[in-house]
């Protein structure tokens, strides 16, 4: 703890002038509620937070530099996995879609549908972690265990498909590493049948819990215009009431063929754009993901998954920006090719990085204890913030 050199402020209204000095408190980099190595510099006036200055970069692994030093485009995929490591499938998805656009490849229908199923499963996994840890941040330990139990079932499906539970290297440019195993359709349908009632259970346990609502409603409000100016995306943007989802507004892959809704924050328990709204958007999105998975499994066509994988990846000199909707928000890949077998430049527009940059706008004027609630509600993964 250290005191700043600011002038003492005078507080009127007590007969005499009270002096109140601002204090700087460092929260993190080792703190259970920062979800990784993040340091927040809090400027506080008593219990009120005057300003928050996030310090990031503790997990910087030079992803973009590594990409320029690969021997081919395919080798980037395992690194892309390790950005948002709780939803690795979604990261691969964006990268392969960008590369295919650069190479002008059309992938088989079967591949597209399997990718959508995997991406939606990874959305469920990511949201389960977000919800579970959010409950834990606020003081509810039990929902975390319930979420982990359900997440395990999805990880089993991933493991049966490609052998890995967390970091898959599953989606390849033009195809997939493995086809789905026999009995996949039944397993997926079983899961959907199992999971629907569990969302209700979660709602009873946490979402409509009185203490939880007290801690999250009317806290960390982010108005829609501020959200757009900060270019936040995903549940943080939709929590502010903006109906914007790239799966509907700028469809990629085969997302235009499914029937689903975009949940937005409505301010049911407080103000539109508060922490509870952001939280609730995630719960509703899991329901919609289950809907998409059920449709995709029913429509899954037969075919070969490796027929479009190129032998030699050498795109023409061009640059492409492709954005996809990951669980955290809009993940963009800006890939510049100079006609060789290695990317000239890969820039990742990480949703967590952008969402975190809006944290000070949500926290000013809040209590210290609310910082934890606000930070948890943006759902950051530091692996993706720092890349």
């Amino acid at each position, binding site marked *: 703890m250290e005191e700043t050199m600011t002038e003492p402020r005078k507080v009127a209204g007590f007969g005499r002038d009270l002096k109140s000095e601002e204090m700087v408190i460092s929260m993190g980099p080792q703190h259970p509620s920062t979800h990784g190595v993040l340091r927040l510099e809090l400027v506080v006036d008593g219990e009120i937070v005057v300003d928050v200055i996030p310090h*990031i970069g503790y997990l910087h692994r030079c992803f973009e530099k590594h990409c320029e030093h690969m021997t081919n485009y395919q080798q980037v995929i395992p690194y892309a996995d390790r950005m948002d490591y709780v939803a690795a499938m979604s990261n691969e998805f964006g990268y392969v879609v960008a590369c295919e656009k650069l190479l002008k490849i059309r992938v088989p229908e079967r591949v597209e549908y399997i990718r959508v199923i995997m991406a939606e499963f990874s959305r469920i996994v990511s949201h389960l972690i977000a919800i579970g840890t959010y409950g834990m941040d606020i003081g509810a330990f039990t929902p975390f265990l319930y979420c982990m139990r359900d997440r395990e079932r999805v990880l089993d499906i991933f493991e049966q498909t490609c052998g890995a539970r967390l970091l898959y290297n599953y989606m390849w440019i033009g195809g997939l590493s493995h086809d789905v195993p026999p009995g996949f359709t039944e397993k997926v349908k079983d899961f959907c049948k199992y999971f629907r009632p569990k969302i209700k259970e979660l709602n009873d346990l946490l979402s409509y819990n009185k203490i939880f609502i007290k801690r999250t409603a009317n806290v960390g409000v982010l108005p829609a215009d501020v959200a757009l*100016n900060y270019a936040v995306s995903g549940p943080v943007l939709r929590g502010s009431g903006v109906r914007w989802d790239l799966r509907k507004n700028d469809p990629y892959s085969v997302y235009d063929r499914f029937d689903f809704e975009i949940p937005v924050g409505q301010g049911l328990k407080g103000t539109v754009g508060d922490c509870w709204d952001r939280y609730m958007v995630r719960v509703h999105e899991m329901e919609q993901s289950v809907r998409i998975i059920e449709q995709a499994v029913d429509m899954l066509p037969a075919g070969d998954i490796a027929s479009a994988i190129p032998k030699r990846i050498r795109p023409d000199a061009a640059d492409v920006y492709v954005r996809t909707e990951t669980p955290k928000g809009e993940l963009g890949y800006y890939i510049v090719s100079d006609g060789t077998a290695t990317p000239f430049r890969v820039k990742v527009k990480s949703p967590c990085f952008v969402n975190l940059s809006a944290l000070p706008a949500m926290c000013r004027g809040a209590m210290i204890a609310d910082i934890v609630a606000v930070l948890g509600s943006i759902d950051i993964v530091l692996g993706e913030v720092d890349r």
Partner: protein
Amino acid sequence: MTPQQILESLKSRFGEAVLDAKVDAFPDPWIRVAPATLREICLYLRDDGEMLFDVLMCLSGMDYRGGKLGVVYHCDSTVNHHRIVLKTEVTDAEPRVASVESVWKTANWHEREAFDLYGIVFDGHPDLRRILMPDDWSGFPLRKDYQVPEFYNGMKVPY
């Protein structure tokens, strides 16, 4: 609006500042503008009723080799459903670009990142300091001619 219309409207308003464009480029059409007028152009793109580019999707620093640095802006309109790519180029001897932080708040961290990794200076940025690398790091790691230092604060860098 089509990229062609956006280009013409920018040309009629800013004339000399629009340097170069490729509106039929695959897959993303782009317009190259002068680094000094960038803020005015972006302000126009954000506020004009026909443009309304309310979201800056991405801001990337670039090193085009041979002492040429650049910044690429991907703008999107959630109202009018069109997008455009702005590019600007500077030399590594004078790497100064006008900041668009006052236009789109999201540019704040993106510009800090471009400053950190490429050494591009954004004029008018309120808080331009390193973001991903340590504050006392020397050099700009994403430049193509970057050499990994042998020591950092007396510690040997392992490779």
